[in-house]
Each structure stands twice: as C-alpha cells, then as structure tokens.
C-alpha cells in the first residue's frame, strides 16, 4: 500500500506521547512508533479531504439532522446507591474511594 511510502507523514512520537498522556495511556516505544505512523496516515487522509473546496459551507456541528430536543424538568428516580457502587473499584458503602487527591 502506498500509505507506507516514504512520502507518508508520521506524527512526531513526542506528539503521540502527549496525546497518550492526556488519555492516561501508557505506550511502549514500539507502540509509539506504530501509532506515529498510523496517526500520520490518518492525518494524510484528512489532508486529502482538505483539498475539497468548502468555502461558503457552514461547518457541520452535529451528525444528527434535528434540533431542540428537550426534556421537562421532572424528577425521575435515581439508581439505588448499592447499584451505583456495585462496579466501583473500591467503596466504603457510601462513597467511591480513590487514591488520595492532593488539595
């Protein structure tokens, strides 16, 4: 495939590392290299799309063709606490417990 041709861009590994950090993902150096190339390919494809002349076209902000969907301000019963905490990694029966947050 010509996506792997030398002309294909890669996203610099430090950029990939930054994105991974923001997403709380730990990547090995092999993964960094792999994703640098793959994300580069995605960006290449975006560059293809950018060639389309979109002047005078409103940016699309929603993929759903409708607007103004509301609900009334009426209380619906919440889940029981037991259910809410059922999948918590750790709990004291009342709260979710997480490692100490500093300040």
């Amino acid at each position, binding site marked *: 495939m010509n996506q792997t041709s030398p002309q294909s861009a890669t996203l610099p590994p430090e950029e990939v590392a*930054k994105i991974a950090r*923001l997403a*709380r993902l730990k990547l090995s150096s092999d993964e960094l290299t792999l994703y640098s190339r793959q994300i580069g390919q995605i960006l290449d494809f975006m560059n293809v799309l950018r060639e389309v002349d979109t002047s005078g076209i409103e940016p699309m*902000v*929603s*993929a*759903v063709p*409708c*607007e*103004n*969907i*509301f*609900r*009334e*301000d*009426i*209380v*619906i019963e*919440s*889940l*029981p*606490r037991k259910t*809410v*905490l059922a999948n918590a990694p*750790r709990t*004291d029966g*009342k*709260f*979710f*417990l*997480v*490692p*100490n*947050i500093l*300040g």
Partner: protein
Amino acid sequence: MKFDVIIGLEVHAQLQTNTKIFCGCATDFTPDSPNVRTCPVCLGLPGALPVLNQRAFELAVIAALGLRCQIAPFTKWDRKQYFYPDLPKGYQISQYDLPFSFSGLVEIPADPAVAGEENALRQVRIIRAHLEDDAGKNVHDESGRGSDSQVDLNRAGTPLVEIVTEPDLRSAREARLLLEEIRLLLLYLGVSDCNMQEGNLRCDANINLHIHHDSGLTTKTPIVEIKNLNSFRFLEQACEYEIDRQLKTYGTMTEIHDRTKRTYGFDPARGITFEQRSKEEAADYRYFPDPDLVPVTVTREQVAHWETLVPERPQDRRRRYHSAMGLTPYDASVIIEQGRPFADFFENIVAHGADPKQAANWLTQDIQRILNERKCGINEFPVPAELVGLILAKVSEKSLTLKAAREALDLLVERSEEQSVSAATLDQIIQERGLAIVQDDSLLKEIIQKVIEKNPKPVADYLGGKPAAAGSLLGQVMREARGADPQVVKGLVTAALDALKFADS
C-alpha cells in the same frame, strides 16, 4: 512604582431546577446521603444518552438577559476533556465556540481608591454566559496520613451557568463588588438561590498587573487564575494577596519572559494563594462537539417572550429609589440588598401612601426589629404592606404621631396572632387607644386647665422660676389626651402657665 490591577472573573451559578441538566436526577442538596442522586447519564455509563433540561435552558437565558447579553440564534454543546475523580464521564459538557449568549454589561460602583473620585461607576463587560454541567464532590482526607479520597456524585450533572467577564476590574474590592452585584441580580431574576455555603455560587479570578516603571516602560505580569473562590471575603483576600505577590515577584523586573498563565488555589486558613498545576500538566481540553446532544435554535419571538420574564434589575431599582423616591443611595442599597420580597414590600408600603423615607426607616428599623425578634423573613411578616402603608400615610397627613404609629404597628402585630388584621382592625386600635392626634384645641385646653388645678405644687414651682416643673404637668396632660401631638401640647401648657404668671404679677 505605579501599576494597574487587571482582574476578570468567571462566575459559576447553579440554576434553580428540580432536575439535573441532562438527566432526571433531583438536584436537592443531600450532603449526608452521598451517591443517591445518580443514574447512567450522570455517572457517564456507556450508552447513556443525555437530553437537555428545558427549564435549565430557559433559566440560563433569563440570567443572560438580566446581564444584558445577546442571545445566540444557534447554540451547541461541546466536550471539555480532562480526567479527575469527580468527573465520571471523563469530560464536562460545556459550550466552546457557540455559547448561547454573549456581549453583556454589569455596572458597579468603582473603587474610589482606583477611580480617584467618589460615586464613579465601573462598567464591566460580560464576554459570554454559557451552560455546562457541574462535577461531583471530592472529600479529601485531611489527617495528612494520605488515606483515600471519597467521591460523591450527587452533584455531578447539576446545571451551571458560567458568566465570563472582560478583565475590566481594577482592584480586589471591585472584584468583590461585581460578584455581589451578580449574586443580587441572579437572586432578583429568580434563576439561582446563590447559596454560597452549599457551593451554588463560586468564582475564579484571573489577575495580572501592568507595571509602569520610572523609565516609561510598562511590563505585564503573567496571568494567574485563582480557582474556586466560594465567598466574597475569600475572593477579595485572594485578589489582595495575589496583587501583592505579583508586585513583589515582578515589581523590579524590566523584562518578563515567561508569560505562561498559571493556575492557583487559595488557602483561606493561611490567607495565601498557591500554585496548583505545573506547566507540564497545563490543561489541554481538546474540545469537540458533543455527538450525543443536538443544537438548540432560538427565535426572536422566544427571546422577546423571555425578555418579559426579566424583572427590573437591582441596579435599576437602586437608581429609581434614589432619583424618583428621594432615598439616599445608601438607604436604597440597604433595602435592595435585603432581597426582592423585602424591596417589593417597601414599594407596596409606598404605593399605599407612605412617605418613601419614612417607609425606608420603618422597614430597616422597626419592622426589621420585629422580624429579628420573631426570627422570620418579610414574607412571614403578619401585617400586610398595605396596612403598614396606611399607618404611615396617617403619619404623613398628621392624624397619627410617629410614636402612636409605632404603638399601632406593635398592636397590629400582637392582634395578628389571633385574627387576620385589616384596615378595620387598625381603626379599632386607634379608637380604643385614643391614638389619633387630638385636633381639637378646646378639648386639650380643658384637660390642661384640669391638670393645672389639680397640681398646685408643680405650678407654683414653675411660676417660682423652675421651668423643669412643667414636665410633670406635660406628662399628665399627655396621659389624659392620648394621641395628642406632644409639640402642640407643650405649646398649650406653656401658654397656660405663662398666662398664670402674668395674672399673678
């Protein structure tokens, strides 16, 4: 060294809805029962779909109109992504580039220390007001032993309106005044209870200094954002401390290279600000349109309708009480800051014939005293404003003395325990107690004559050159002629005694 203080605020107010912004969980304050107001939507469970609360949107629009903002015809929702234990979705639903409102204005008194004159005004421009959902609450272990933090998600998903100002504030005091004015406005608009103890109104302050060096050079200090200030005092203290800190840090520097914006917290116990996030962790929110929510469009007709729901702003009332009613700006503020029911009560008294100044005095003194004694608010005051107005109207037309009017009010309050009080009750009280000013001088003269005849000793004392002796006579006449105007009685008693003096000589 000369310098300008530049402050802008981001104010977050919880909207007074029954339910959360994107789900039907209740928004009541339940600090003692953590995690009982959640559902798949506000827990951020996979597949859950948020739907906008119509009431939250309307309240937010009314808030924005109160702030004199423009309402956007088209608005949408964006995800602001960051990780924190109190944010189960991993993103906050907020509004990035198309907020529902923008370009507003709030006016506050300018700080005389900065403006250089008393009674100047500061126009604070509002950049935008947008809607977003609140996070949950973290309870930290404060023992220092590093135990777990507890997370309560009852609050997660509560509707907030965020109000962002231009950096138009020029001192810590002005920052406080603006937050106070916004709180008052939101209370009058009825869109938020602004309960600061419960965290329903809080703000972030962005501060930096423009330092003017003797050489003519001006340097700008890096902007510091102080997060999560939840009282007026803390806001003012934090700004004061930060101004001082920036001045000490940068005051003598003629060049400031690092202009990175920093995030600080405020420690009320020590009264200091401290850096919270280091540069490497600087927020990178990667906003993008939330695909789970659809845009909202607003027509001009809708805006016109919502405009009708915006009551007179506190700022406008203050001006009217001063210019049209003749109250001092101070008295006007005292009444308005007591809240809308109190100010409405005041206007009702005036509408029923009371002199505005008299009404203001009564409300802030006599009626406030009764409210304090009964530990209740103006809504529970047992005497209707119409009746209070009627009493004061009688004072204005000089058919009641102020003292008699107070007595009538106290009696009305007393009687209200057993019956509902009306104008008839008031007339009855005035009659029973003889509170009405006795207009008929001949009746008064008759009483005075009787008192003089019955009290030869004080009369002799007076005539012998002791003017103070007239006091006891005056007291007796007043007791007999209830409701008489003391000034009139005094004049008549003195005249009667002086007549005796001339008769003697």
